């Protein structure tokens, strides 16, 4: 390595007498190219090109093996008339809503508790973070066992309280709720650490000043903590929304989209159409719509953020 660098350095000093600027420019261009190429090639092969392929496939009827037949936008037309697709879209919206309005507030509460002046909070805070470290598959299987109608611990508690035991995951009206609870359980700790980092960053003087003015804990929270955390709340919401649109693992493991499509998401529906029914064209149309929705949501969020910042600059 050392000698190579030396050699390159020597050749550089020798070439200095020649047309210096074009040489340097060419060298810079070559450097940029060589530095970015490895990452870009992998990224192009596995991310960029597949998106175009997905769109191309979505215009065809295709079982994945035999010849494709071009059908134009027929897959999309069929998709918009497909009741299951609308169910899955609605369920995705539920995941978004629960993520933003349950998960994030719970994460904030957990983060605030980390600063509470009580004994044992260091230990508790370690435990609070556990769920986020477990693999989604393990989480899904664990909760399936906990929800089990006969041997599950949750139903044991339910019957202990004098109610009938519930088949949480195989009834349409409880399955979505049951899985969403697990989603909250898994991801609230993630928002906890984001909020913790933000709370640490709030200047202590603000609280001292408020104390002098005789503010109590609640006023301090509403007038100092909450406004100071606004940027984190916004960025957490972005992460929650984008993450929810991609949701797949936990639903696939726990219910597989059932019962009777009650917990179907765009992700699980696409997977079934592609790798169980081998409707690759139709599945590509779902996949491309997922991409399109994520794109539109991202652009809207960026624009809102842009205007928020712009307004902030004048106020």
């Amino acid at each position, binding site marked *: 390595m050392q000698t190579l660098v030396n050699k390159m350095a020597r050749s550089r000093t020798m070439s200095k007498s020649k047309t210096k600027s074009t040489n340097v420019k060419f060298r810079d261009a070559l450097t940029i190219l060589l530095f970015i190429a490895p990452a870009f090639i992998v990224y192009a092969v596995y991310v960029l090109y597949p998106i175009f392929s997905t769109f191309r496939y979505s215009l065809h009827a295709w079982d994945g093996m035999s010849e494709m037949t071009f059908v134009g936008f027929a897959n999309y037309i069929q998709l918009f008339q497909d009741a299951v697709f609308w169910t899955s879209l609605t369920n995705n919206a539920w995941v978004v809503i629960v993520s933003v309005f349950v998960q994030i507030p719970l994460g904030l509460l957990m983060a605030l508790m980390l600063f509470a002046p009580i004994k044992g909070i260091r230990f508790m805070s370690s435990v609070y973070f*556990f769920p986020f470290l477990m693999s989604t598959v393990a989480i899904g299987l664990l909760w399936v066992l906990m929800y089990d109608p006969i041997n599950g611990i949750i139903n044991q508690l339910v019957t202990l309280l004098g109610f009938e035991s519930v088949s949480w995951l195989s009834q349409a009206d409880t399955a979505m709720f049951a899985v969403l609870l697990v989603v909250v359980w898994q991801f609230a700790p993630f928002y906890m650490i984001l909020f913790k980092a933000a709370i640490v960053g709030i200047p202590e003087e603000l609280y001292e000043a408020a104390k002098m003015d005789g503010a109590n804990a609640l006023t301090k929270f509403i007038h100092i903590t909450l406004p100071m955390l606004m940027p984190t709340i916004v960025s957490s919401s972005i992460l929650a929304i984008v993450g929810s649109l*991609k949701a797949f693992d936990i639903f696939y493991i726990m219910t597989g989209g059932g019962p009777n499509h009650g917990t179907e998401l765009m992700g699980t529906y696409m997977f079934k159409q592609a790798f169980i029914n081998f409707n690759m064209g139709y599945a590509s149309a779902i996949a491309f719509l997922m991409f399109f929705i994520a794109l539109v949501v991202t652009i809207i969020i960026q624009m809102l953020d842009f205007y928020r910042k712009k307004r902030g600059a004048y106020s």
Partner: protein
Amino acid sequence: MTATFKKIPLYVIALLLLVFTGFPFLYMLSTALKDQSSFFEAPFSFFTSFNLENFASVFEMGLTRYFFNSILISFLAVIIVMFIASLASYPLSRMKFKFNRVLFLIFISGMMLPIHATLIPIFKLTENIGLYDTLWALLGPYIAFSLPISIFILTQFMQEIPKSLEEAAKMDGCTHFGVFWRVILPMLTPALMTVLIYNFIHLWNEFIFALVLISSPESMTLPLGLQDFRGEFSVNIPGLMAALTLASLPILMIYLFSQEKVVKGLAGGAVKE
């Protein structure tokens, strides 16, 4: 006295959260330590038996293989990502050129991308290059989908490194690669730690690519293997719990040994300093 009295609600909330987050883990461990008959006799008793047999049988059923596969593919992918993402981040954060901004945006927009949008083409590509149903099928997708967050973290960090250091090295006759290798890379260590932890934990838990690209047990990673165990253990609930406990252990251990680093690593992608 009133001060302690006032704290009671705080304790109540803290304990409720503790039960909510920690209880499933206790239940998992307690059940894993029961043998079949004592589970059916008393499925809800806590830590009444300490039987390690389940753990042994889980290993016999091939968990070791899944562990090995997961460690191998996650580490390999993360090491490659650390190298090529740092390389790409150098010009993206420190050099002026025409398509800099566009390229950067193309890279980081991958963070928003649903994996499903690439699934079928990657499945076909993997088949065509003959890697379907091997562990190596996962390498490309794992690297590619780790790049956006890694480039995001690394470019942010590199922007903070003063230009003067680089110029001093150039005066001494260093090439760009020399500057990168001897000046920038050593300073990147904290950011590279973040990249390592974040990506390792995510790849260790990755499920959907493994589900689509692998079907035979000898190539399975841990999450896929667990899903496979589910069928084998359909009646042996303590056995499945033992498998879940073992699968969760490595990351929990890493976390307990270096809590600060893991928390920082996982927040790394989202917290801007």
